[in-house]
């Protein structure tokens, strides 16, 4: 079913981008670049880029720590300092890292912030997180309140409100730490570059409509979104990366090949799945392997929409820079209402001709998880397909139960196979 692991050019590029980011970050103070901490969903990368500040994404640090098996230590440290077992592990991982000297995932020290840009998109815990950070750093905080699309739409009031806050709160504070005024043209240039990369990324995700799918839109997808969800959006580097990625995928598509996975290329795809929810980072490869071993490929995922719904059609618009940033923040996946999220999932199942969908619920994240069981039922109703449900955590290894997840995934896929078998009697065995 599989062939040996192959490295593709875009993978190397992605890795280099990330490494470059952390070493530039470590030099930020020498380079006299102000440091701004902010979050991935609703991050204002182009605006930060226009000010040439160095952004830090605490969630990215947390997930990188987890993939390097360091998160458990950090979480323990935060719990020792009085944090509850119950709360979001991203927060604890980040706080623990800070308590242990703020040494980042690459071993370089992450500089303290000059500004906490609390873009409060799609997650309430962000706010609590920054309250805790502010106690430690005693620096300027810019609070950007992104209203939730609770009633299912973005109203003019919401958009105006966000733009207003950008103008009166965020930009002035950035101007203060950066020491210069905003150059609107630079912002526009960046937005134009974002748009170009977004086009390529969306094309890559859409390629999963082919059979076999040349990509894995969940496990592979999280690598693809790395640059565009963080500081690289709006840069030439990102444009180059996405062009390269697209070329790689085009080549696989032409060759009729499936995605490259840590356990080899998955071309013999027995199940096409849509996945909801973030992955587990502490056992990322083992987690992926469960799907791989069953011949299951993710053809679409919602996690790859948390930092921008490009696959669903969102594009930055250089013509209306602030409105476009506002729309970007308002439209991130976790800022959608539950019925809207169910619809995204159902649409994905249909558009990508999936055999089923799996909800991965993580203990940490109320923003994602609270209501997922309801979504499961709703999507089942909308698509007529059964859904699978598994649970673990983002970066807290204690909550990842491999055999349990494996058992559930296997049972789920056998169930899909049995249903398929019932309509095609010769193929009872999956």
């Amino acid at each position: 079913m599989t062939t040996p692991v192959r490295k593709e050019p875009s993978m190397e590029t992605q890795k280099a981008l990330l490494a470059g980011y952390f070493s530039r970050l470590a030099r930020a103070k020498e380079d006299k670049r102000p440091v701004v901490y902010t979050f991935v969903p609703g991050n204002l990368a182009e605006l930060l880029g226009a000010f040439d500040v160095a952004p830090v994404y605490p969630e990215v640090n947390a997930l990188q720590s987890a993939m390097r098996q360091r998160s458990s230590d950090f979480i323990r440290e935060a719990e020792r300092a009085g944090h509850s077992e119950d709360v979001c592990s991203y927060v604890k991982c980040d706080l623990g890292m800070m308590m242990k000297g703020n040494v980042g995932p690459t071993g370089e020290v992450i500089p303290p912030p000059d500004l906490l840009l609390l873009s409060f998109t799609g997650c309430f815990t962000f706010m609590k997180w920054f309250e805790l950070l502010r106690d430690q750093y005693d620096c300027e905080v810019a609070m950007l309140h992104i209203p939730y699309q609770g009633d299912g739409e973005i109203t003019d009031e919401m958009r105006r409100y966000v733009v207003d806050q950008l103008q009166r709160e965020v930009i002035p504070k950035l101007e203060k730490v950066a020491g210069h005024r905003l150059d609107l043209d630079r912002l526009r240039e960046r937005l134009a570059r974002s748009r170009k990369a977004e086009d390529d990324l969306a094309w890559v995700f859409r390629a999963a409509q082919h059979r076999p799918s040349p990509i894995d839109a969940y496990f592979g997808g999280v690598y693809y979104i790395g640059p565009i969800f963080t500081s690289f959006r709006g840069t030439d580097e990102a444009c180059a990366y996405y062009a390269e990625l697209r070329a790689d995928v085009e080549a696989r598509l032409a060759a009729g090949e499936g995605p490259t996975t840590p356990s080899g290329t998955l071309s013999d795809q027995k199940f096409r799945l849509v996945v909801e929810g973030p992955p587990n980072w502490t056992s990322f490869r083992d987690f992926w392997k469960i799907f791989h071993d069953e011949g299951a490929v993710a053809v679409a995922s919602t996690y790859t929409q948390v930092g921008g719904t490009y696959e669903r059609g969102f594009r930055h618009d250089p013509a209306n820079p602030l409105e476009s940033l506002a729309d970007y923040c308002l439209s991130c996946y976790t800022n959608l209402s539950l019925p809207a999220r169910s619809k995204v999932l159902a649409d994905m199942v249909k558009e990508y001709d999936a055999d089923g969908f799996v909800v991965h619920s993580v203990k940490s994240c109320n923003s994602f998880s609270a209501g997922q069981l309801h979504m499961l039922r709703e999507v089942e109703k909308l698509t007529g397909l059964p859904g699978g449900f598994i649970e673990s955590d983002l970066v807290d290894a204690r909550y990842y139960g491999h055999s349990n997840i494996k058992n559930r995934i296997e049972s789920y896929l056998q169930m899909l196979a049995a249903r398929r078998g019932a309509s095609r009697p010769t193929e009872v065995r999956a």
Partner: protein
Amino acid sequence: MTTSAAPALALSDDLDELVAEIEARFDDLTLSRVRAWKDAAPGRLAVGCLPVLAPREVLWAAGALPVFIRGAGDRIDTIRGDAFYQSYICHLPRSTLELGLLGHLDVLDGMIFPNTCDVIRNLSGVWQTTFPQHFVRFVDPPQTGERATAAAFLRADLDLLYRDLCARTGRAPEPAALAEASEAYAEAARAMAALAAARLAEPWNLPADEVYQLRRAGDAMPPRDFAALVTAYVTAARGRGRRAEDRIRVCLVGAFCEQPPVALLRAAERAGCYVVDDDLTLSHESSPTAPRRDGEPMASIVHAALTTPRACAVRYDEHGAAGATLVERVRACRADGVLLAAPSFCDPALLDQPRLTGALDAAGIPHTSFKYSESSGQFQSIREQAGTFADSVKLWGTA
């Protein structure tokens, strides 16, 4: 106007009868009294409000009774509600859904979901699909403190809500009605302040479980009726003439969106504490005289919402003063210590705890903390903890 009529509530001045009345109201999970209120006059609506910040004046002015929904505690088995939530999510949304699925909330015409946390935020979506007959509204009061942009946004939202509700009740969206509603709630708040003061002075006469159930009774009462009930209770309870026991005075602090079971309050008091202050029913605690701005009632309401009087975990702590505020409160009510309680799996409340305990430590105020769930039926560990805490304050004094 029906809402401004004098209280129709006939109240006894006998304490036992009052307490029975309070308990009956607290236990009225099927909202039969709300139904009676609605039936008493045409055009009345009842709208459920989830914690914490619901625009109750706006509802009341439009002729809709705000009914605060704070889960069902340990009073029903959560069965179907559990189907909606994984084990690592707090209990409140489950029992709230269970109430809905059992038909107990059928009397409500709609539900308001204020942005309290991600769980309640998402519950609004669950509600939209599960109870399509309800008018469901999500309100997102800005967390940014009082800024012109925030006020304008909230104002637009509330204006719209007011107009929509009035369209349903058939009233004119008059500012005067808003002013009258604010006044009615101010009256309730004054009664609440008197209640707090009385308890502070003689906690042995106003036990925590009674005071709490009284406030919960107010969750589903017209504001002036509630004020009358509170006032009657305070008078009667003060006359109870109990003797003070050798107990310590504590503040009970938490997020208190999900409420602890009443038995937990009893367990804490029996373990040797007097609860002299708590933040159990947050939404009732607005300041007694809502600040008016240029005489324009909606502006006052918006202003009050943005400058919430009481710090709590689900509001952004703009000035980083949550700890200092708590220390002040403890000192103001001459408490010997603080019981920090938080619902299990409640991110806002639990993330706040280390910040609060840090401030208490710095101020030399003893404290202990525990988690609970509204449905827990076992208080052994809470009794142990509160008891040990009381023991140690008693044996060693405050420091």
